[in-house]
């Protein structure tokens, strides 16, 4: 079915993401060199990863183990055997001038990942994930900073041979929001299973987006463009939005979308053509004769299976159920492992009764404050014990919420002992009904004109009056009176 395009035609985007993740194994994929970010150039190299004549690759078993973990976490099938191929093309940062990668028999097939969208939960299918080696890193010296127009180029082979997993989604993603949610969830999952430090900014996670558009209702997919060079979730979102708009404009004006690779320019805020399909390489894939098929043993599968940690989605469900916190707070905790650890320790001290308060105090008062100071939680003066004690005081009505916030502010700043700070700052909450009743009586006597209006007031007016008396009582008690007790005293004294 062909749909005639008019200016009112509605379009939908079809997006698939290819994510490259650097695995954080101690050594490289095919040799014993350190897999270490930040060493001096060309110091983590040997005959194998420099492709000296006669050298041969030997597969790092840890990489297979990491791949199996990814297989478990993303619900992949891991076939009995997978095979390495050579992907042949010339580039100076690739020492062998072929990349050892997997092709039609990857280690992971048919996985999936659940993401949260504005319309609820959505399952994104993942076609495959395969192992491959990274290339070296080129620096183009000259005014342009890109290969074209450079005076000369320098190559650092430390990264050559570093293990990568390429994770290829199906084109199930339909907006930039979903693309971001997918990458963000994928990052959380990979982080939780400790296979990569997944930093888009540092390049340990690289995302390419295949984007196409089609009129709503059309079965056939549009021509897609592959977008590269997005260095953050934000630039991924912007690039995808730009590309969708660009393609819709092309189609509406009757021009063809070209199958090509496009480069995202963060500063200019647009994509531009890198190379078209006609210029694309013929990679001449063939099975790597220097390696044997990868056949994970049953023992290895079992070892990986039994050592899988809790995944982010499971963890969120558990926190919502056991701690009685909101999904959004659970999401915040799970995506910030250090903050989660901070709260988790507090809850283990104070019990799950304080979990809800501990979470919200930690997110707003503690993390909010630390963010402003640019301080990490594990080096901040405040401790999990502090948080637990403050929450317990609140639960026992010995401290009001506002007092708790003041106290936490102090602790975040300079730390200290909770019990002595409560004394020092005069923060103890008064819950002695006798003492509070005296204050209520005093206030009601002082504002007898307002009390007189109570009998005839409607509900709205009464609420206002009650708030007014409450404020006066709190002021009178220097903020230390227990608000719940004040409230019930005021209500009972005014009657109906």
């Amino acid at each position, binding site marked *: 079915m062909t749909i005639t395009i008019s200016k009112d035609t509605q379009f939908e985007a079809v997006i698939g993401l290819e994510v490259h993740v650097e695995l954080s194994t101690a050594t490289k994929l095919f040799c014993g060199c350190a897999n270490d970010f930040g060493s001096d150039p060309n110091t983590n190299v040997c*005959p194998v990863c420099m492709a*000296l004549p006669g050298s041969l690759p030997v597969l790092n078993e840890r990489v297979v183990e990491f791949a199996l973990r990814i297989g478990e976490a993303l619900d992949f099938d891991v076939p009995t055997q997978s095979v390495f191929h050579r992907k042949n093309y010339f580039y100076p940062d690739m020492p062998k001038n072929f990349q050892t990668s997997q092709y039609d028999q990857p280690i992971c097939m048919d996985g999936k990942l659940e993401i949260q969208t504005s319309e609820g939960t959505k399952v994104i299918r993942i076609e495959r994930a395969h192992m491959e080696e990274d290339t070296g890193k080129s620096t183009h010296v000259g005014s342009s900073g890109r290969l074209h127009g450079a005076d000369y180029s320098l190559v650092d082979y430390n990264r050559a041979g570093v293990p990568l997993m390429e994770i290829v989604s199906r084109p199930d993603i339909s907006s930039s929001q979903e693309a971001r949610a997918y990458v963000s969830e994928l990052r959380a999952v990979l982080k939780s299973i400790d296979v990569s430090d997944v930093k888009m900014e540092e390049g340990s996670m690289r995302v390419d987006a295949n984007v196409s558009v089609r009129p709503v209702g059309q079965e056939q997919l549009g021509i897609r463009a592959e977008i590269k060079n997005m260095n953050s979730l934000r630039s991924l979102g912007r690039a995808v939005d730009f590309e969708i708009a660009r393609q819709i404009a092309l189609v509406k004006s009757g021009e063809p979308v070209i199958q090509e690779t496009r480069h995202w320019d963060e500063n200019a805020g647009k994509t531009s053509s890198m190379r078209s399909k006609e210029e694309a390489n013929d990679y001449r894939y*063939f099975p790597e*004769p220097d*390696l044997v098929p990868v056949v994970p043993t049953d023992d290895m599968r079992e070892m990986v299976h039994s050592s899988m940690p809790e995944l982010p989605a499971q963890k969120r469900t558990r926190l919502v159920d056991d701690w009685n916190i909101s999904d959004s707070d659970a999401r915040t905790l799970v995506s910030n492992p250090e903050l989660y650890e901070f709260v988790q320790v507090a809850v283990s001290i104070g019990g799950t009764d304080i979990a809800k308060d501990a979470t919200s105090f930690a997110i707003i008062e503690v993390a909010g404050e630390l963010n402003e100071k640019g301080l990490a939680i594990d080096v901040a003066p405040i401790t999990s014990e502090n948080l637990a004690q403050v929450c317990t005081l609140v639960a026992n009505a010995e401290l009001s919420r506002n007092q708790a916030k003041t106290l936490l502010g102090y602790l975040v700043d300079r730390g200290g002992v909770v019990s002595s700070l409560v004394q020092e700052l005069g923060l103890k909450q008064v819950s002695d009904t006798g003492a509070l009743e005296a204050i209520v009586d005093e206030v009601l006597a002082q504002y007898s004109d307002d009390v007189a209006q109570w009998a005839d007031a409607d509900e709205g007016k009464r609420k206002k009056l009650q708030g007014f008396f409450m404020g006066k009582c709190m002021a009178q008690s220097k903020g230390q009176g227990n608000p719940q007790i004040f409230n019930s005293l005021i209500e009972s004294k005014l009657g109906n």
Partner: protein
Amino acid sequence: MESQALEQAKEIDRKKSAGETLGALAGTTVAIKDNMATIGVKTTCASKMLENWIPVYDATVVKKLKEADAIIVGKTNLDEFAMGSSTENSAFKTTKNPHDTSKVPGGSSGGSAATVAAGAVTFSLGSDTGGSIRQPASLCGIVGVKPTYGRVSRYGLVAFGSSLDQIGPFARNVSDAATLLDVLSGYDPMDSTSINKEYKPLTDVLGSDIKGLRVGIIDELKGPQGFQREVLDAVDETAKLLEKNGATVGNVSIPASAYGLSAYYIIAPAEASSNLARFDGMRYGLRVEEQSAALTNEATRQAGFGMEVKRRIMLGTYALSAGYYDAFYAQAQKVRTLMINDFKQAYENFDVLLSPTSPTTAFGIGEKTQDPYQMYLADVCTLPTNIVGATSMSVPVGVDDNGLPIGVQVFAPPLGEEVMFQVASAIEEQANYNAVPVVGAF
């Protein structure tokens, strides 16, 4: 190299006078084909591309030789990157046949074969991708072995066809070949395709009775086209000698070997095109500097590779290209499977198989250089073994009317070296080959 050799010799003298245990090869000298990495010693592959390349590491076989107290005295000439059957494709030298200096020594390990034939060393190492040990052994009148794929580590052997390459020994007799192969054999964690297995010494099987062994002559490898009459006769003679000693002899067909040459000239160049991609002038070897990395790469490869190497890179690149892969590379892999099955079937009825090693005795220098296809035919009998990953060896049995050596090839199934050496040593004893080269230390 020279100073290293003298050092090694002194060290062995010291060990001897100190009464220390000596390695299995103490007192012997070895030459190494110049496509195996030797630390601190140029490894050129007979190519301008690596004319001045000095490895920073030893090939596993070189390490093993040193550990066994062999004295490595030199690196030997070859066809550039081991591509050829006459050693005429060397970028540097022409190697001559010690039995007739107007003839080629065969190839690609021609230097290693000629060195041993001339008595310059006790034995030497060659590499065999389609016959590069056995064919020159045959042409030079010595013993040459292509071991089972995975028996000897390839680490440090500059790759030509990775799924076919195997290092093996040259020696003047079967016993020496067994001694050297025993040293070379064994699992190497640096080579993923090496077989993890303990081997029985081959020297133990030499001279044992061949009574009852079944010997099959391969129908497809006895001409008549292109095969020299004397060579075919030598195979029949050899079979008769074995029969006389209690073996049973029959004929056997390996139908898929008809496609062997075609399959080989797809698989080997395909792998070579990828293996040789690393020579781009960026990290080591020749560099012809131009205005950009791409142009430097192009100019370096243009200047660094000889004709035959370029021809094979082009063949291989073509065979792997999109749209041709299924017609060429995939088909060749199917032939491989067929041949494996054919051989398996043959070994249900036979213990070893027999054929000529080379269709002819040594040919003249320059005789085949203008006709690559004629040159390729020189390996028609040897390349099936590489395609199926099995083992075979060439044993000298006689000379033709011009006094040029003739070799017979003994085949065994993968890891069948024991029975192969058993039969080879019987052939050696019966044939009593004793041609003396015109050049050499005799």
